[in-house]
């Protein structure tokens, strides 16, 4: 089942991010489905899956983006790893926790992306990037992830317990 989900992510991530996420962009800022997905995957399946899927999603994003190879590969791998650590460390997860965690993860992702973009291509000023891209994207990602959690909380908790060898009573 997990493999099917991963294959679906692999094939449909780029079209969904490119077509669906751009169509719901606000003021030119689109949510990053990669960060949201990696948070839930890390939460459910832990660090190894987070790192693996993070590197795949990051690589795909770099291939199908106008930017250089590396920015998403590195940042998404790290986000997958941190999400896995969060999932392993914490027992109770709720919508507010999801909101805060994804906001933090998205901020981290934005800062890492800025670092890479500055190192490789340049062109972006730090405070303007924080104001116009990093913070708005983090808000958007966090709200979307919290909404997704509210809609699927039972399935997420069941999958989380199953991956740890437990079950919902």
């Amino acid at each position: 089942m997990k493999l099917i989900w991963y294959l679906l992510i692999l094939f449909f991530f780029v079209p969904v991010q490119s077509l669906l996420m751009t169509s719901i962009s606000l003021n030119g800022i689109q949510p990053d489905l990669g960060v949201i997905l990696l948070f839930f995957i890390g939460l459910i399946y832990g660090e190894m899956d987070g790192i693996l899927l993070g590197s795949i999603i990051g690589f795909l994003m770099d291939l199908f983006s106008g930017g250089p190879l590396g920015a998403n590969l590195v940042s998404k791998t790290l986000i997958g790893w941190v999400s896995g650590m969060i999932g392993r460390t914490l027992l109770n997860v709720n919508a507010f926790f999801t909101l805060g965690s994804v906001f933090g993860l998205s901020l981290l992702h934005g800062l890492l992306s800025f670092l890479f973009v500055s190192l490789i291509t340049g062109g972006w000023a730090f405070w303007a990037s924080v104001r116009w891209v990093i913070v708005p994207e983090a808000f958007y990602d966090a709200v979307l992830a919290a909404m997704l959690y509210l809609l699927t909380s039972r399935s997420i908790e069941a999958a989380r317990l199953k991956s740890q060898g437990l079950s919902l009573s």
Partner: protein
Amino acid sequence: MFRSLVNYRHLIVLVLFTTLIIFLLSPELQHRPLLIVERPAGYLVIFFQRGLSAVAEGISHGWSHYIALSRVYEQNQRMGTVIEQLKIENTQLRETVIANDRLTELLGFKQGSPFRMTAAEVIGRDLSNWYRTIMINKGEKDGLSSDMGVVTPSGVVGRIVKTAATYSHVLLLVDPNSAVAALIQRSREEGIVAGTEKGLAQMKYLSTIADVEVGDLVLTSGLAGSFPKGLPIGKVSRAEKKETDLTQQVEIIPAVDFSRLEEVLVITSIPF
């Protein structure tokens, strides 16, 4: 020893990944990122992207049809269906007329231009907020290569930054990394047009004594290779002179609406 390694296995995997990533960042791979993986991955994902785009369009049509039908009384169902079908046909016909107008304008612009151009369709937008690019359905097979200029009859869109066999990425004029040599039509003052973090465009390197007014038309100067001289870029919306600065801050409203791009023309050769 072994147990402590097992305890740190996640960290070890992460370090190995990071090392691999640093290897991937070599200038050679940046120039042509992993051709072996890019080609097949590109074909697969583009296949799904085109499929999903068609499915999304189908679902959108089906959904509106269902909503309309559910509100119609049973005895009027057939009539309602006919009306809905006629409405859809009408919408499709209008869409065809609009597309026809758009394509006629594009064709007229292409035929009237002294340089060679290839028409392409926009099939996607950038996946992240860090690069303002669009994906077009023409690539190396169609004779496209990096640095070629992309335009519409309204004006400059951007230039190609990445190409694959069947698709290309176009860096839009409003990206902070974009740079187009430009001049003010009225005063002939020259500068460089680049994007801003806010998603707007600005004209750089205009001295404080340069003659710039709000409403001035900005055109390509033809000094850099991608664009011929005289293509519209936009209009000056704000020009600010500060005593402490060496240059003016000139904001431009682009001539092209980047959120509504559907077809573009790639300039494949410019006569000198």
